[in-house]
């Protein structure tokens, strides 16, 4: 075994008589791990700065009169350390510390949720004495007290290790947990009795080495030995966190962040941790067909037969909308099904606000390319955020940017009309632009800066090697925006990272579930690409669609007008669409609708045939995160009967006397892999001109908060309890011109409706109003106005 990497500044040290060379600056506790010695510890955490708060890790250092904490002392050349393995002094010191830690510990393991997986239990056995000499009464506190709706604090159990407080301060950037009081009374608390308001709060439960912080929703549900654990990938966003899903008797009981140093390190967000109740809520378990206007349960053969007949009779006028939440394999099945079985290229995974320009940008600049990675963010000289708010739209990206900014002063610039809380946490720079002016600003940066605040310096920074532009899916709302991003990248050499919100979008893009795009980033209008695809699919190249089909918007408007024969719909929600009303009309007026769904939705309510499919716990698969990195996950419930979208499409293909293969995850993945990378030319980069910024009233700025009214967060009241307060944000000048003060109710009105929310004064450009897109009582879709457009804002409730 190599003890440490061969670098020039290695020092030679000795631990328990083992001589070793370690890089300078290595902590004793890390070096001991290298030779397989685990020094007992509580406060030590590799990703948090050392504090030596618990004193559990005492070791003997030669020449030092007293035992020293191994977690906080760096090795120096020639240092000789003896741990509990070879030193009685160290062993006795550790036992003494353990005795002190237990002096005030309630030892109520039978009623403690940490029991069975508790470092204190384990280390009391391995590094403690059987008997305590303390027989005085223990300190008591009221227990448990909630520090937010997700987390319960039991102060009696706390060992004051400061892991939670350091996490909140150093990692999450929400320094709202503190160690209060001193001595035996020392306790964790929240400032001013305000709840611990953080999107990352659940991580403190996981790193607390005792049962002082426990989860309200997991409370008393299980013991570790009841759980079957499966490594999974979070299905909520494109950050791509590794998770561990724990299930008991066919039910998911909890999810934990799982270690992946390339992606989420040891962390995840509260949405990924707590939002899984939806997996078992009002599921559809059997196929249904519509008869006399009502859905009725049908057998698989019957339902497939009806679906096959409906689709066949609409041949030539069909389209596929997959939704953005499918796995790469399922997306590939949809992509193949559309082209081979339906013979159409009318397919789109974007069931949200989207544009043709965006599609062209994705085909030309994102698909088939490995973009910048998390590690590239760590190293980048500058990161420019365009139409992207990392904390709400991809929280692990926020953590990485924050870590790099704190560690080495990474420069992060947000091109945005509003300076978000996330930007403040990153200590980023706000390049304020008017709503909808993104494209103009990007072009200005490409030309050297223009009138963008600090433009010249940003433009220059972007020209440094390693610079990254992170662009969110909201760029689709800015006409000319995607083109301008591509132009800026071309002008400066910066790399583009496209960060969609949904976990399945990047995978769907790579699988070719977008019109004009074949698997692996192959342009449909390239004869070579078509030939390659036809060969893998075993079809005649003449049978493949030859020109790009329609995208979501065109499909929806044609269906709404009654011009579409049949629509195959995956998991999507009409209320997320650019125009929810048009989407509903499309579902109503399409000749025939086949819905592949996991639960009852607005789509199944309109469908002619509903085919039930598996949720993530019932299938394996792969998501592709924003980096383009594959994030495979295993099946949690091996005995689940539900079939994945891919399998169902394969059966449907057979019912239509065609084939897309077996449709199981493995064969779909193998087939997709067999394409290999595309080496030919990519389709053309869009060059739409920047939109003219609209005049008139305050312009709407909006995005979806991490925690909102989304369907996948249903059934989790504790999670919902940590949502942000719904407010509108305006600048002080705008507030003054509207005649409203902070805290007052305002009504924001668009052509189709209005919402009434309290207003806050914030860092936002004048003549703009920010609103959350999908918060409780604040559904922006109901206003009937696109982001960047003017709205009317008036004081008082509607």
């Amino acid at each position, binding site marked *: 075994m190599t003890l440490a990497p061969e670098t020039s500044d290695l020092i030679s040290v000795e631990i328990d008589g083992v001589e070793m060379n370690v890089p300078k600056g290595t902590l004793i506790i890390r070096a001991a791990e290298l030779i397989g010695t685990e020094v007992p510890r509580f406060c030590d955490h590799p990703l948090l700065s050392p504090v030596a708060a618990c004193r559990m890790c005492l070791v003997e250092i030669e020449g030092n009169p007293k035992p020293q904490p191994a977690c906080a002392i760096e090795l120096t050349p020639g240092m000789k350390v003896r741990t509990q393995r070879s030193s009685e002094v160290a062993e006795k010191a550790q036992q003494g510390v353990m005795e002190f830690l237990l002096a005030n510990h309630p030892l109520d*393991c*039978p*009623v403690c949720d940490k*029991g*069975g997986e508790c470092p204190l239990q384990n280390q009391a056995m391995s590094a403690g004495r059987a008997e305590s000499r303390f027989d005085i009464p223990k300190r008591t506190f009221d*227990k448990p007290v909630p520090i937010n709706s997700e987390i319960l604090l039991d102060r009696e159990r706390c060992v004051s290790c400061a892991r939670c407080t350091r996490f909140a301060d150093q990692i999450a950037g929400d320094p709202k947990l503190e160690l209060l009081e001193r001595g035996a009374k020392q306790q964790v608390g929240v400032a001013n009795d305000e709840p611990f308001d953080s999107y990352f709060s659940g991580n403190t439960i996981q790193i607390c080495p005792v049962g002082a912080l426990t989860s309200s929703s997991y*409370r*008393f*549900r299980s013991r570790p*030995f009841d759980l079957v654990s499966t490594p999974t990938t979070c299905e909520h966003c494109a950050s791509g966190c590794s998770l561990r899903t724990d299930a008991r008797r066919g039910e998911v009981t909890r999810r934990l962040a799982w270690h992946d140093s390339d992606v989420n390190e040891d962390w995840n967000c509260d949405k990924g941790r707590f939002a899984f109740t939806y997996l078992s809520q009002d599921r559809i378990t059997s196929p249904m067909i519509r008869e006399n206007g009502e859905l009725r349960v049908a057998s698989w053969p019957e339902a497939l037969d009806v679906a096959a007949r409906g689709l066949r009779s609409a041949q030539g006028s069909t389209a596929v909308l997959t939704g953005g939440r499918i796995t790469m394999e399922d997306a590939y099945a949809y992509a193949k099904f559309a082209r081979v079985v339906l013979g159409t290229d009318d397919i789109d995974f974007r069931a949200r606000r989207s544009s043709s320009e965006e599609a062209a940008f994705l085909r030309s600049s994102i698909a088939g390319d490995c973009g910048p990675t998390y590690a590239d963010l760590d190293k980048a000289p500058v990161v420019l955020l365009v139409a992207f708010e990392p904390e709400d739209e991809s929280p692990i990206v926020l953590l990485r940017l924050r870590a790099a900014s704190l560690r080495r002063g990474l420069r992060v610039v947000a091109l945005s009309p509003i300076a978000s809380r996330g930007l403040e946490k990153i200590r980023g720079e706000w390049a304020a632009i008017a709503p909808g002016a993104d494209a103009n600003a990007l072009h200005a940066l490409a030309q050297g800066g223009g009138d963008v605040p600090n433009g010249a310096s940003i433009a220059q920074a972007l020209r440094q090697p390693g610079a990254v532009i992170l662009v969110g899916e909201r760029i689709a709302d800015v006409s000319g925006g995607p083109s301008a991003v591509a132009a800026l990248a071309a002008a400066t050499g910066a790399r583009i990272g496209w960060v969609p919100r949904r976990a399945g979008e990047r995978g769907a893009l790579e699988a070719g579930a977008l019109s004009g795009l074949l698997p692996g980033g192959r342009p449909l209008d390239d004869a070579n690409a078509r030939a390659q695809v036809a060969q893998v699919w075993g079809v005649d190249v003449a049978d493949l669609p030859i020109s790009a089909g329609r995208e979501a918007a065109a499909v929806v408007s044609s269906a709404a007008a009654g011009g579409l024969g049949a629509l195959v719909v995956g998991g999507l929600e009409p209320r997320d669409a650019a125009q929810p009303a048009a989407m509903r009309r499309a579902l109503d007026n399409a000749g025939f609708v086949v819905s592949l769904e996991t639960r009852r939705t607005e789509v199944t309510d309109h469908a002619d045939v509903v085919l039930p499919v598996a949720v993530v716990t019932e299938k394996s698969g792969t998501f592709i995160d924003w980096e383009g990195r594959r994030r495979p996950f295993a099946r949690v419930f091996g005995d689940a009967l539900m079939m994945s979208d891919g399998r169902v499409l394969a059966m449907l293909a057979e019912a239509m006397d065609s084939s897309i293969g077996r449709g199981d995850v493995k064969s779909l993945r193998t087939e997709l892999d067999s394409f290999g990378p595309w080496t030919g030319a990519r389709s053309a980069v869009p060059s739409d001109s920047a939109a003219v910024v609209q005049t008139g009233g305050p312009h709407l700025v909006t995005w979806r908060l991490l925690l909102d009214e989304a369907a996948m967060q249903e059934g989790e009241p504790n999670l919902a309890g940590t949502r942000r307060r719904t407010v509108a944000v305006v600048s002080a000048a705008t507030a003054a011109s509207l005649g409203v003060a902070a805290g007052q109710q305002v009504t924001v009105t668009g052509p189709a409706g209005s919402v009434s929310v309290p207003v806050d004064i914030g860092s936002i450009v004048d003549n703009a109003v920010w609103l959350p897109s999908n918060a409780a009582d604040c559904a922006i879709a109901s206003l009937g106005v696109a982001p960047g457009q003017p709205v009317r804002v008036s004081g008082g409730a509607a």
Partner: protein
Amino acid sequence: MPDLVSPAARGFGVTFRTMFKKVVTEQYPESGAQSKPRYHGRHQLNRWADGLEKCVGCELCAWACPADAILVQGGDNSEGERFSPGERYGRVYQINYLRCIFCGLCIEACPTRALTMTNDYELADHTRDSLIYEKQDLLAPLLPGMAKPPHAMVPGTTESDYYAGNVAGAVPEQFGQGE
């Protein structure tokens, strides 16, 4: 000629003598048979003197069981619905008597003396289902002076008072809450 008579006579002698000895055969099931007091029979989930349950749903019994016969799921006592003193109670409790080998390890594991074994050995039945005993089948009967949970703790006491033996029985306001 071999002697055929005397071995037979000896045998009948045994029979004859036994006729005058005390009978050890028990006429079960016509008359019930009493086991020894420490016989490992059906389990029981005990109660505190005021009727609250002793089980805290810790699952230690389930963990200790070598036959995987016990299933426990804890629950959170709320102020309005309290089954045991303290935070936690056993919401689901099952023992599968098709698996149990009556070793008593679960009894040793129980930190609250909630689980003990009775002398009841009549545990035969016709169906699997009926041999999985649920919590209500295992709970000790309510004795006079006990109130049926859920109900609050004796006013003025804490969880520790129960463990310290300071609760002698239910007080009037504890009755009627569990209906």
